[in-house]
């Protein structure tokens, strides 16, 4: 895997670190959006 990345000129360790962060941001971002959505719907339902 590392060799494949190296052949493409991509640093595997950096790619892995950034991918983990991108996934965290994605999940946390959608969790936040979902919570905000729930809050908004509660406000609307009052």
């Amino acid at each position, binding site marked *: 895997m590392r060799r494949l990345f190296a052949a493409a000129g991509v640093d595997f360790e*950096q790619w*892995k670190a950034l991918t983990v962060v991108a996934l965290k941001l994605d999940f946390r971002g959608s969790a*936040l959006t979902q919570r905000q959505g729930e809050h908004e719907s509660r406000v609307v339902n009052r």
Partner: protein
Amino acid sequence: MIETHDLSREYGPKLALSGLNLRVEPGEILGFLGPNGAGKSTTVKILTGMIRPTRGTARVAGFDVVEQPLEVKRRIGYVPETAALYDALTASEYLELIGCLHHMDRKTADTRSNELLELFGLTAEKHQRLREFSKGMRQKVLIAAALIHRPEVLFLDEPLDGLDANAAMVVKEVLKQLAGQGRTILFCSHILDVVERMCTRIVIISNGQQIADGTADAIRSATGSATLEEAFSRLTGVRDVARLASEFISALERA
């Protein structure tokens, strides 16, 4: 060490930086000053490998910034004037990411991250998301990120911006000790009394050109000024601040 020769950069027809010749030795803290739009950030962006010069050469830590940008980036720490952090990460996770990008092993990155967060009084907040941090707390994280891999050369663009007096004192002392260890520091700031007290040498640029180079004392005496602030005003074009202020107030009163 930082070394530039005839370093220039054009943005279309505008010459942002013109023929800068600079040499900053290990152990030096160079105050890099200039009015807004003088070319300071352009210089720093070239030296950190973010943009290319249109003419001239620059070497940082012994490597050419155009030919060997990765070697340069491995050896530098950079605190930008404005930075976007990953708001959904915690301070600890952000520093872990920076450690990974610098190929540090996890244990060393963890140890240094904890040390730096403790230094800046952020231990209790290290598992909080960065979106919950104040401007000063975010600035501390940025400084910690610039130091975590123990770089040879540091580029600091307004590093004390947003910091409280205690944190600013800590940063100034850390920088002095890093310079004492032989690291090279380029310090951009508009707070001239801080620059005067901290920096071993000062370079002033205006309209993309170097207009002064020397110690604060040398620049003051060369311009016949009592303070560095006065010398800066004389060199960069604002000669009669009191008259300008009076004219402004008169204009306001007339309106």
